[in-house]
């Protein structure tokens, strides 16, 4: 009796093991062609990919896998060959990436804009300021809490650019009011809403963000706050395994009249989040 019991149990154990191994194999084999896109968090968090990718999948049969990280990390990921296409928003880093031979070329895709959000009580009195640099100067001089991404993302790079234009970056002795979250846009907005702090955000993430509480947009509309996104195909020269054909097809689709119309039609709460740029850029 003991012996048959044992046999049954070992048979069961073997079955479990086989199932596990089979699921491992099954899980790792992708169905149909697929590409990996390293992208900024805003395009994913705003729901744009959730809206576009199923349409692309139906029309082309290509499965797009998006890894949403900050621009800096996305670029490093692509440099290591772990992505086929880049979708990011920091022009200087993008040009460097292409010039160093990692990317084929930079294609303008769309833009939206950055906004400075802060508590409705506005302790630094920046509401109505048109120049974002002026707003930051007031935040600094009143030592009101400012929450920075601090994660080398496109938005973080832009924020640092604005401080630099003021003469100097926040230093260590500014730590009482200048806080680095080291996290994505949403997580940073969560902190800002918790501590009633100011924060630079892309508009798409802000509109879709569900935990605004006291926060509201205080500064917007200045050309310095324009936020253009571009696409770059990772170079086959650097990484021979890159899926160039499918990657190029994805870029062509997004920048086509059809793709650009879809981007323009995407709305959250009735608000357009991204404005197509590709057709204009192609004319130039």
């Amino acid at each position, binding site marked *: 009796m003991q012996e048959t019991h044992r046999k049954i149990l070992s048979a069961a154990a073997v079955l*479990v093991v086989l199932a*596990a191994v089979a699921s491992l194999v099954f899980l790792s084999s992708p169905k149909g062609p697929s590409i990996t896109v390293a992208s900024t968090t805003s395009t994913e*968090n705003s729901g744009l990919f959730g809206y576009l990718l199923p349409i692309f999948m139906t029309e082309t049969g290509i499965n797009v896998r998006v*890894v949403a990280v900050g621009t800096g990390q996305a670029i490093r990921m692509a440099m290591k060959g772990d992505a086929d296409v880049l979708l990011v928003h920091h022009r200087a880093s993008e040009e460097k990436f292409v010039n160093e031979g990692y990317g084929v070329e930079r294609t303008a895709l769309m833009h939206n804009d950055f906004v400075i959000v802060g508590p409705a009580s506005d302790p630094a009195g920046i509401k109505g300021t048109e120049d974002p640099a002026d707003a930051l100067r007031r935040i600094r001089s009143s030592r009101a809490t400012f929450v920075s991404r601090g994660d080398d993302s496109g938005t973080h790079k832009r924020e640092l650019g604005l401080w630099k234009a003021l003469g100097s970056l926040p230093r260590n002795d500014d730590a009482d009011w200048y806080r680095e979250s080291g996290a994505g846009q949403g997580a940073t907005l969560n902190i800002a809403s918790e501590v009633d702090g100011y924060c630079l955000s892309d508009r798409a993430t802000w509109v879709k963000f569900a935990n605004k509480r006291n926060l509201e947009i205080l500064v917007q509309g200045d050309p310095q706050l324009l936020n253009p996104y571009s696409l770059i195909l990772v170079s086959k020269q650097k990484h021979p*395994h890159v899926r160039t054909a499918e990657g190029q097809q994805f870029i062509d689709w997004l920048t086509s009249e059809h793709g650009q119309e879809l981007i323009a039609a995407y709305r959250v709460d009735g608000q357009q989040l991204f404005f197509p740029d590709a057709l204009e850029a192609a004319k130039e």
Partner: protein
Amino acid sequence: MDEFSNASRTALHLLAEMHPDLIEIVLLSLRVSLSAVVLAALLALPLGAFVALKPFPGRRGIVILMNALMSLPPVVVGLVIYLLLSRTGPFGVTGLLFTPAAMIIAQCVLVFPIIAALTRQTVFDLHEEYDEYLRSLGAGTWQKITTLLWDGRARLLTGILAGFGRAIAEVGAVIIVGGNIVHSTRVMTTTIALETSKGDLGMALGLGIILVLIAVVVNTAVVTIGGSASRRTL
């Protein structure tokens, strides 16, 4: 408090309607963590038993190492596996980065020391008890290993379930090696991190509730099995 009750309401609503996205995420979590635990157990049970039974130079060091590795930080494991599986890394050609297989490997590494250390301790204790009996039967090392593993099965299962608890609850490793790709590598813990960052606390809390439920079920199993095992030996 108001926010908490709002989030709870959304969470219960999502659970009640069995939202397909939610189900997909829960199933992927279970598949990844179960596969990781089964693989880890396959390697750790014989190895732990071998270390317990066979004296060899440096065994003390191995035992200390196994115990220390039980508290490996998941983010460190994630980072190391990421560097190994990256296209420019030594195992880049496998193309496993950002797939569930990569997540299974990472969790396997996390769970392996727990099962191995517990197996070693269990088999070591049982061996003290049954050494003479086994020797009188003229059992070889392999036969000793299988006999003692079978004898300690209840305690070993407790260790395996503890490993499963660690695997399914960790976020640091899977978010790095999996990339949190929707419909592909998005599991419960990475979704909670993402939804929290989007300020969408209802979905995050809903998944949190499922995770806690799984933890309760697993721990009930641990207590039940552990309890019946200790009664038998008494």
